[in-house]
């Protein structure tokens, strides 16, 4: 069920109504039922996959929890007779077992993900290397599988690390895995954070409800008015790469940046807003990323929960693992301090970005996309002392103008890397980007050829106006939430009328129905 559908709106209305009518203790059960219903819409077979993930992770968590509890009890009971070494040995023994259970759980779930998502990709590689001709299997990707498996894996790793006790109630755990607003495209929540508010009880809180509703409205605005309109031009430009070179590639970079941002953040706004209407707090996923001064910062502000997931569960463990420390030691001895110091960090970085690329999709364009990000990050890391010296000498690094230049630079750099997504063809993308420098067709900006991409002049005006609103809101957010600072300070009647007006505007200016591609949320496919 897409967020942009009448079915979803109806589902939401009924769910929220029931949510505040049923006894408070039953609220989370209702949410679980709603989530199952929501997921069943994508087909019953998809339910099996999420059930396997929920059940296996739940059982593994319980088992690890039990082993840890037994261990603590044993040590406590025998603390007198055990010396430090014996305790340590015992702990290590238990840890081995919990590690095994966690690994099995990871293996099962990531294996499932790998088989479904990457089999065809693997086959294509095998075919490429061995010149074989193995047929593709074409598994249908169950909705949101990359998101809920990552969320569950974060949970089991945390339980293994002893960060928190495992959830004992399987139904409650199932709700954590399947909570419907974040099924489609995240955020990837952490159990300790989400569980604080997920299970209620929640009394109806007008302010929370209104804040959530405003955020949902804002999400729909971005998604329906801007993203779903822009996608037509993005598809047209990327669909005929031979025709659209040079200035069109620059336009595509810009259009896709707008579309992806509006689509993804819009979807997340709806997710978080819906949760807020239910009294539940979901982690933020964006922090106005296009205002970032450099790529490292950009990745701290874009798709935040994915970034921290990779950092906490792959980057850190990898780079501080005994093996990596050994490599570090070895490289320091052989290659000298300067390089040796960098080896573990950079090696982990490369692996993480490779994985990030692969997570986004089973295709070379995503992998190259990940590695290009990685390259830029490492290069800028290496150049940073140079920058610092340079700025110290000329002393303009903190001027507003320079910051704007940095944002501009980051925006376009990320934009050009990002078009790998839309061309889905690695050499093709490089050809296209190269054509920006070789094809002098900037005159087309004013020749009217942009009106042949499926968008009329009024569509472009609508997008432009939408972007202006989006930009203004982002700037206003410098001083905190617009809802708190501006909207919620007005009288209720004014707020209601403005809310309704915006809803009407979305109804009119939204790009939906006949003539518009019913664009699925872009991130739903990963």
């Amino acid at each position, binding site marked *: 069920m897409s967020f942009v559908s*009448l079915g979803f709106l109806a589902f939401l209305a009924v769910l929220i109504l029931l949510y505040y009518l049923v006894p408070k203790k039953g609220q989370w059960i209702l949410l679980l039922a709603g989530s199952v219903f929501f997921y069943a819409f994508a087909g019953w077979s998809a339910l099996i996959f999420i059930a396997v993930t929920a059940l296996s992770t739940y059982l593994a968590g319980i088992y690890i929890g039990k082993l840890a509890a037994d261990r603590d009890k044993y040590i406590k009971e025998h603390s007198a007779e055990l010396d430090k070494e014996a305790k340590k040995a015992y702990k290590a023994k238990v840890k081995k077992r919990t590690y095994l259970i966690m690994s099995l759980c990871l293996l099962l779930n990531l294996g499932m993900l790998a088989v479904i998502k990457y089999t065809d990709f693997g086959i294509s590689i095998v075919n490429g290397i061995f010149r074989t001709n193995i047929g593709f299997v074409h598994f249908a990707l169950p909705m949101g599988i990359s998101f809920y498996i990552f969320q569950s894996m974060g949970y089991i790793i945390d339980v293994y690390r002893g960060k928190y006790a495992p959830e004992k109630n399987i139904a409650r755990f199932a709700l954590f895995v399947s909570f419907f607003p974040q099924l489609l495209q995240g955020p990837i929540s952490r159990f300790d954070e989400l569980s604080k508010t997920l299970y209620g009880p929640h009394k109806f809180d007008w302010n929370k409800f209104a804040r959530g509703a405003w955020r949902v409205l804002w999400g729909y605005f971005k998604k329906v008015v801007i993203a779903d309109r822009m996608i037509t031009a993005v598809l047209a430009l990327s669909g005929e790469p031979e025709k659209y070179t040079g200035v069109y590639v620059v336009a595509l970079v810009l259009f896709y940046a707008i579309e992806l941002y509006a689509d993804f953040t819009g979807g997340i706004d709806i997710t978080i807003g819906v949760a807020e209407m239910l009294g539940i707090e979901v982690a933020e996923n964006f922090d106005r990323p296009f205002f970032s001064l450099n790529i490292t910062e950009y990745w701290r502000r874009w798709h935040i929960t994915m970034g921290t997931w990779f950092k906490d569960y792959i980057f850190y463990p990898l780079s501080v693992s005994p093996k990596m420390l050994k490599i570090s030691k070895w490289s320091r001895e052989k290659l000298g301090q300067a390089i040796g110091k960098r080896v573990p960090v950079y090696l982990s970085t490369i692996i993480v970005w490779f994985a990030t690329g692969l997570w986004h999709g089973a295709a070379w364009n995503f992998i190259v996309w990940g590695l290009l990000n990685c390259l830029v990050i490492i290069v800028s890391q290496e150049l940073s002392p140079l920058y610092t010296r340079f700025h110290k000498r000329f002393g303009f690094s903190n001027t507003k103008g320079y910051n704007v230049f940095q944002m501009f630079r980051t925006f376009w750099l990320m934009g050009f890397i990002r078009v790998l997504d839309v061309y889905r063809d690695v050499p093709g993308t490089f050809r296209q980007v190269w054509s920006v420098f070789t094809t002098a067709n900037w005159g087309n900006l004013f020749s009217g050829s942009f009106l042949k991409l499926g968008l*009329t002049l*009024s569509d472009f005006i609508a997008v432009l106006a939408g972007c202006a609103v989006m930009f203004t809101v982002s700037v206003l957010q410098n001083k905190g939430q617009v809802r708190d600072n501006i909207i919620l300070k007005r009288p209720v009647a004014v707020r*209601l009328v403005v809310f*309704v007006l915006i809803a009407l505007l979305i109804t009119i*200016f939204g790009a*939906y129905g*006949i003539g518009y591609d019913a664009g699925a949320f872009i991130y739903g496919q990963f």
Partner: protein
Amino acid sequence: MKALKIIIRIAAALLVFALGIWLLQRLLVPKYVTENEEGLLVKEYYSYAGGNDVLFIGDCEVYSNFSPVRLWQDFGITSAIRGSPQQLIWHSYYMLEDTLRYETPKVVVFNVLSMKYGEPQSEAYNRLALDGMKWSDVKYRAIKASMTEEEADSEALTVASYVMPILRFHSRWNELTGADFKYMFGTRQLSHNGYVMRIDVKPVDTIPKAAPLPDYSFADVCWDYLEKIRTLCDRNGIQLILIKAPTLRPHWYDEWDEQIVKYAEEKGLCYVNILNEVETIGIDYTTDTFDAGMHLNLSGAEKLTKWFGTYLKANTALPNHRGEAEYEEKWIDRIDYYNEMAEAQAKQLSENGKLDGYWGD
């Protein structure tokens, strides 16, 4: 906060929203007064429903070619046309079903041209045929039966967009004209019991040869609906007459004609291919058509109607209602409007040399 207060707030917001949607919808839906005027036809039926002994169903070959006013004036036969542009056979069937909710005619006349279309041709024609229909289960079934592939892809939205046409026409915001504001709460009458009048002339000078077809059989779905129309008429004691209007294009192949003749014989129906009667009727394609052969103009339509009235007298038992007060009363206004429009068109034609619209303004 008290529950009541919350409910009032939310209800107020919903109410304002509904009001806003209603107003915007009135503004944004096409008014069909300056272009595609035929979009008014289906809705207009409800203003002349009741007391019609003959019902015509079909595409422009009925609504441009037959004049119920003439049929009344010359024969005392009461009739109505439920035509719409590119009306497909399933549209016609549901048109008939919908009509039966308001009246039961004695004779139904179906123009068989649409037998050649086995698939929805364009979403736009669905809107022209169905948007004007009043809500009932008939309309719902008609929508489901008519959906194009694109519409069927998002079926819920499609059905919803007939309940709330703003969902379909919201993007007309950039095409709004003065007429959209002027006719926001009501349009003017276009048709004369379903007949669309044009008095101008564009002679036929050439008709391209029709290329032979690889396959002349009609689609199964068309036969199914023809049979549905026939049984529905049968059940309601209605006499069904099949016609092929004397329109030169699209070409009506002999191979098609033979199939209809055979069907009519099997089922004991009247079928008349009026293309064969053109000389008897006296239709002159240099003066009787307004678009070089596709549609007849007023002169052509009146000639055809005159002939068809005689045909009806000969083949049916339709009563002559002339002189019956309740009928005379109803038709007197219709005759006035008919003459009024003909005059207005004639005036504009003589002043401008061409027609800008049906109303001559």
